[in-house]
């Protein structure tokens, strides 16, 4: 113990709690949006199958939401408990935005959740749909504010450092930090994308099992339509995010590509598919599948654009390279896999193979969808590692080092809480998986009575 163990433990704890929470947060954003679509289709078409879809996926949403809430609360308090100096220095913008997240987003979600879950007979269809919409809006706004805060940590703007703390003189300047449009959009679309492959994958599982094929063809098709828009959009946003990192966080970009040498004028920087960085030699031990000029082309859209290598920066400013490099490749790889799975499925649809009568014969396609269920979350986790590990050694890029933001706590205290988090989250994860599996095996309850057009003893609207 050299007196810095508590910093590492606090970082590990933050990583664990964030990466655990992100799974449920992302799925809550996506599933609530999906529920709005299904309930809207029910109200629009009057087809009760969509009502049963809303109820079935709503149950999964609820399980997911429960774990999302209890794993989200610790994150907010962690800024105070483990990152006190960071909180004190950045509250002027960062704390402000977290406060906005609670009053403008999270409460909206919670304030309508009860009606959405348990109010089916107590309010009219319109009011219920409104409640579902507010829950979904709240979830997406939560993602918005959290990514605003995180983007500001990547590319702080709109203020200056004064007497040991950040003074945000322009709220809008801080809000629209250079990374913010990319951070917000890339993450929000990732939430939708990962969820649509979960919904589509579970739907495909029922088809593989030859259960309620007609019913689940609907949800698969909704997922597919969404995928047609979202999978290419996400590749575009990923490209934009990468170029934003190139412009604003050169050390992160160099780590993502494990790039040591800046390309001389007139020559391009290469892209390597795989490599093994050796930090002591400040070079790569080996490189696999090297594409000349590939990196310049990716981030500058020219063959010879200048990309700075890590050797241009002092070693104390290097982020850990290995997780940043491979995190990026896992994320981007899955993004392309999703795109090709979408193309394959659309091709089958065009050939008329996705009808309830014959979709069961598309075994490989259905297996591919089932296999895709965890991939979206995996991509988000990998992308988050790239984003956050790549920002190191800074907690606010270029302004405050992570080590200077940590609360001074006994290592044994932080170690214990980290261990307890690990234990509790394991229990929650296992329980959630057991219950979700049971829900899915049980399948939708199509005999559930459909609520009437108006609330019990009331009109269509609360004031009637």
């Amino acid at each position, binding site marked *: 113990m050299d007196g810095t163990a508590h910093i590492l433990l606090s970082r590990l704890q933050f990583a664990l709690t964030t990466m655990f929470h992100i799974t449920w947060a992302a799925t809550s954003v996506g599933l609530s949006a999906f529920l709005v679509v299904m309930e809207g289709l029910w109200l629009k078409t009057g087809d009760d199958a969509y009502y049963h879809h809303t109820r079935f996926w709503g149950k999964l949403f609820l399980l997911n939401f429960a774990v999302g809430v209890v794993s989200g609360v610790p994150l907010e308090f962690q800024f105070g408990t483990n990152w006190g100096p960071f*909180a004190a220095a950045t509250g002027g913008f960062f704390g402000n935005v977290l406060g906005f997240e609670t009053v403008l987003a999270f409460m909206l979600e919670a304030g309508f959740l009860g009606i959405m879950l348990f109010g089916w007979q107590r309010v009219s269809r319109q009011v219920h749909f409104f409640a579902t919409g507010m829950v979904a809006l709240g979830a997406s706004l939560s993602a918005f504010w959290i990514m605003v805060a995180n983007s500001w940590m990547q590319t702080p703007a709109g203020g200056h450092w004064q007497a040991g703390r950040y003074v945000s003189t322009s709220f809008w300047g801080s809000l629209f930090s250079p990374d913010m449009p990319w951070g917000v959009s890339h993450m929000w679309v990732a939430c939708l994308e990962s969820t649509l492959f979960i919904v589509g994958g579970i739907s495909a599982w029922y088809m593989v099992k030859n259960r309620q094929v007609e019913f689940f063809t609907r949800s698969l098709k909704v997922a597919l339509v969404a995928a047609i828009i979202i999978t290419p959009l996400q590749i575009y946003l990923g490209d934009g995010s990468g170029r934003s990192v190139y412009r604003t966080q050169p050390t992160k970009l160099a780590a993502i590509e494990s790039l040591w040498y800046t390309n001389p004028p007139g020559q391009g920087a290469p892209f390597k598919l795989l490599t093994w960085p050796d930090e002591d030699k400040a070079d790569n031990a080996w490189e696999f599948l090297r594409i000349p000029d590939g990196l310049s082309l990716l981030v500058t859209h020219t063959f010879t654009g200048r990309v700075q290598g890590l050797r241009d920066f002092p070693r104390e400013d290097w982020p850990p390279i290995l997780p940043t490099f491979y995190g990026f490749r896992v994320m981007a790889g899955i993004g392309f896999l999703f795109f090709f799975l979408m193309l394959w499925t659309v091709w089958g649809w065009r050939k008329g193979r996705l009808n309830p009568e014959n979709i069961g014969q598309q075994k490989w396609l259905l297996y591919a969808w089932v296999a895709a269920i965890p991939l979206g979350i995996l991509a988000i986790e990998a992308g988050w590692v790239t984003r956050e590990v790549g920002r190191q050694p800074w907690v606010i890029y270029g302004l405050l080092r992570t080590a200077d933001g940590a609360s001074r706590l006994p290592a044994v205290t932080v170690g214990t809480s980290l261990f307890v988090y690990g234990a509790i989250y394991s229990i929650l994860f296992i329980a959630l998986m057991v219950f979700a599996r049971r829900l899915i095996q049980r399948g939708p309850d199509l005999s559930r009575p459909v609520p009437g057009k108006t609330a019990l003893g009331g009109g269509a609207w609360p004031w009637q």
Partner: protein
Amino acid sequence: MAMMLPDIWFAIIGFILFLTVVSDGFDLGIGILSLFTQDENRRAILMGSIGPVWHANLTWLVVLGGLFFGAFPLAYGVIFSALYIPVLVMIFAMAFRGVSFDFREEARDKGPWNLAFGLGSLLATLAQGFAVGGFLSGLQMDGTTFAGGVWDWLNPFAALVALGLLFAYILLGAAYLIMKTQGEVQADSYRYAQVGAWSLLVLAVALVGWSVYKYPFLARKWFTWPEAALTSLPLLLAAVAFILLVRSLLTLRETAPFVWSLVLCALATLAVAASIHPYVILPTVTLTAAASPTPTLVTMLMVVSVILPVMLIYNGYQYRVFRGKTTGGYGGYEE
């Protein structure tokens, strides 16, 4: 105006604290009361009565944290690191309490999730009480950094505060159940409310006495006008509210006990907040010293003064949708 901003924010946060204490307070109180029942139907009624609203109630705690972080970041960083252990224990306990509703519904063996609900609520309450007690005990500071130890919050004064919070939550939980249930559950709730109320009275008197002894400046704040209007006057009014509360319990009123419990909590929050003022970290750091830069306080005030009434309206609407007696079962109200 700029001079008053930290005070305005202190008042807003005091109000959110009040909402947190009463709303998640009755949830936690009901959780604690669930430990005294073996009957699954009765437990279903207890859990069902708060099924549709507990998420929103818990969210006030998150709102409290978020706004406190934004308005008084220095205090946020110092207080929560100083209270690391009770805050973390509260979070752990709340995790179990939080998932218990939905997991219990799915589980074949409900036992573990019943315990998660009951013990989670009890532990969360005690941890919260020790955190508040540790905060009120004062933090040893070296300028703007915490100079004490991780166990400083574990002291007799904080223990008394924790017990006080425990009985306050039992009172709130029982009073809420009186309003939302009928029959046996309601009858028992009247008794639990009496236990909660009288225990709370004893603890409150002890805490008031101890506080004056501990913080001599309180004598001045409590006994000189006009400061007394916000400090000792609420305490006197609380005594009146207590009498009305007990009377409403004896006359078996259904809504009045809950209302008087809310009034009690409001007066207590006011008295404590006014007594602490102008400090945010007792006994040395003032609100002004811990506050965010003025532009931040202004931005937040503009947004919160508009959105807070809206939040209260839609929260109120959710309560209105689930008005009346609980029918038990998942979600607690006839679908």
